[in-house]
């Protein structure tokens, strides 16, 4: 994957990269959990619909539980989406700028995202704190303590902040060591070619798997 570089990477940058890869690995595992959680969600709701329509039984908590599954799924997928450069940016202008200007702009964008993510994480923890304080539960038949799903949710947003932090570290170091092209590779928005390649990969899987 990594193109061969003309000279070896400076030590701090190497450390930062290892750190980023480690966090990205964790993020990927979290995203897999989030993805399979949606599969479970589909099975759960299907069971509920068929049970309700055919047998007249329902879990009476499906709406709440799957709502929590969605919230946790979103939060746990955030960091991985960032590592895969999937978060949407309006980049029609940025991509036309020369690398010299584009690289700092990538950092600026990431910094802004970091600010917003930190605010979200703070707000999420406040919410968990409040739910713990009042011992709040939901109105479903299970009386789920709200701090539980909200805590998992806040943890995902926390992991997102961590991912931004290590990306920022690597980005700043790359810029300091005069390697703006690294920054482009790390943060540049996914191009149409990337998206097309992904769709084609999926089609290839469809054609290959059955034979």
């Amino acid at each position, binding site marked *: 994957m990594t193109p061969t570089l003309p000279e070896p990477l400076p030590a701090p940058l190497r450390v930062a990269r290892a750190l980023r890869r480690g966090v990205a690995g964790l993020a990927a595992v979290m995203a897999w959990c989030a993805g399979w959680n949606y599969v479970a969600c589909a099975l759960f709701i299907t069971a509920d619909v068929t049970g309700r329509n055919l047998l007249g039984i329902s879990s009476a908590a499906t709406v709440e539980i799957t709502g929590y599954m969605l919230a946790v799924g979103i939060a746990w997928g955030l960091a991985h989406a960032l590592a895969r450069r999937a978060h949407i940016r309006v980049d029609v202008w940025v991509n036309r700028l020369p690398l010299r200007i584009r690289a700092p702009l990538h950092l600026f964008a990431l910094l802004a995202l970091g600010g917003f993510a930190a605010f979200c994480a703070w707000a999420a923890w406040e919410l968990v704190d409040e739910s713990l304080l009042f011992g709040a539960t939901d109105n479903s038949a299970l009386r789920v303590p709200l701090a539980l799903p909200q805590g998992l949710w806040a943890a995902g947003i926390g992991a997102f902040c961590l991912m931004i932090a290590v990306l920022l570290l690597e980005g700043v170091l790359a810029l300091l060591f005069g390697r703006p092209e690294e920054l482009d590779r790390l943060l540049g928005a996914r191009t149409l070619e990337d998206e097309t390649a992904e769709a084609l990969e999926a089609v290839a899987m469809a054609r290959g*798997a059955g034979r």
Partner: protein
Amino acid sequence: MIAVLVLLVLLGVALATAVTGGPAVPILEILVLVGVFLLFFGAGVYVAAVLGILGILVGLTFSDRPWWAFAGQTLWGPSSNFVLVAVPLFLLMGEILLRSGLSDRLYRALNIWLNRLPGGLLHTNIASCAVFSAISGSSVATAATMGSVALPYFEGTRYSQRMVLGSLAAGGALGNLIPPGITFIIYGLITETSVGALYVAALLPSLLVTGLFILVILAHGVTHPMERPPPLPLAVKLRGSVQLIPTLLLMLLVLGSIYAGLATPTEAAALGVVGAAVFAAVEGRLTLRLLHASAEATARNTALLGLIIFGAWLLNYLLTSINVPQAMAAFIGGLPLPPWAIMACILGLYLALGTFMEGFSMIITTVPVVFPIVTALGYDPIWFGVVVTMMVEIAQISPPDGTVMYVLQGMRPRPGPITDVFAGVVPFLGAYLLAVVLLMVWPEIALWLPRMMY
């Protein structure tokens, strides 16, 4: 380019009316905020961060209440909303189908029926793209997938390259309009309209647009006659159509359960996931690898939508708490213009925004502000949901910025200028716009069915 121009004109009009009287508006602060907004977008900041930070700035500048104390609840509310659970489920369904070989089969089976019409394979392009994008929900994925399936069929034929590429791009632009689309879910959530009613309302308009597309191709086929393939005996046709049965069953399962009132859209989406998995299993393709790849892609795409929702909800909460949408609605409602002219301006704005913004972010950013205006003008929320979705789709295929067209350009077997794709898509663009005009003249096209059913 068109986008910037329209935005500037609108800003100018707004300023002119504000200066020449009307209620006192904090013009300087608003201009600064608009400036921050444009700067952030220009610098390529993440859409969610632009919205969120703008929200925080609005709160710090205009609100004298401790708004931050409600921020956690504002973010938690939509992300744990049952209506929104439909989004990852529809995405998951699409990912499973994408990987289970639906696209080839769909194209081949539809082709048997359509290839003897004037225009031949071009009809198959529209039909298969429309069906596929309805399932997949992403226009880029649709263009890439169906392009890879369809383009080989045209090699060595006398079909006009322009029409081939144009019809593939246009077919993909039907995806969000044909139920079940994700755009309607988010619109329904923001405006508190029934997603099921939106799906019902979109039925006739999507048939209308498809019909107009078919007319475009028929006209092209009649003026450019080609040799028709020999007719196939009915038995062969029917045997070929057996391939379509799983797709039809799946559509029946998802849409039928919504329309029959057996399931909410979220529940229908869950049924769709299970149905898609069964479909893949029948094909012998339901592997752990397939499910894992689908789950990963779903997690990623849901997270990116979720982050935008975080930003948009925060901004929306603050704008509403300082009465911006209400004030805008009162202001625009008081303009000496007939409602249809204001509506035309709004639709023009969507067309302009759509040339550089992706549809989902566009709807989530604009609808909270535009919606009160629309209802104040006396338009039906359901009708507006359908029209906005059509505008978003039109924007995706309007030259020179449409992403779908660049994807197709990159896949062409025979190289040629991008203007071929532009020229090819223009007749379809015209047909789509005509459909919007028809909907403005006869809103009943969208509203008749939901009124019959609800």
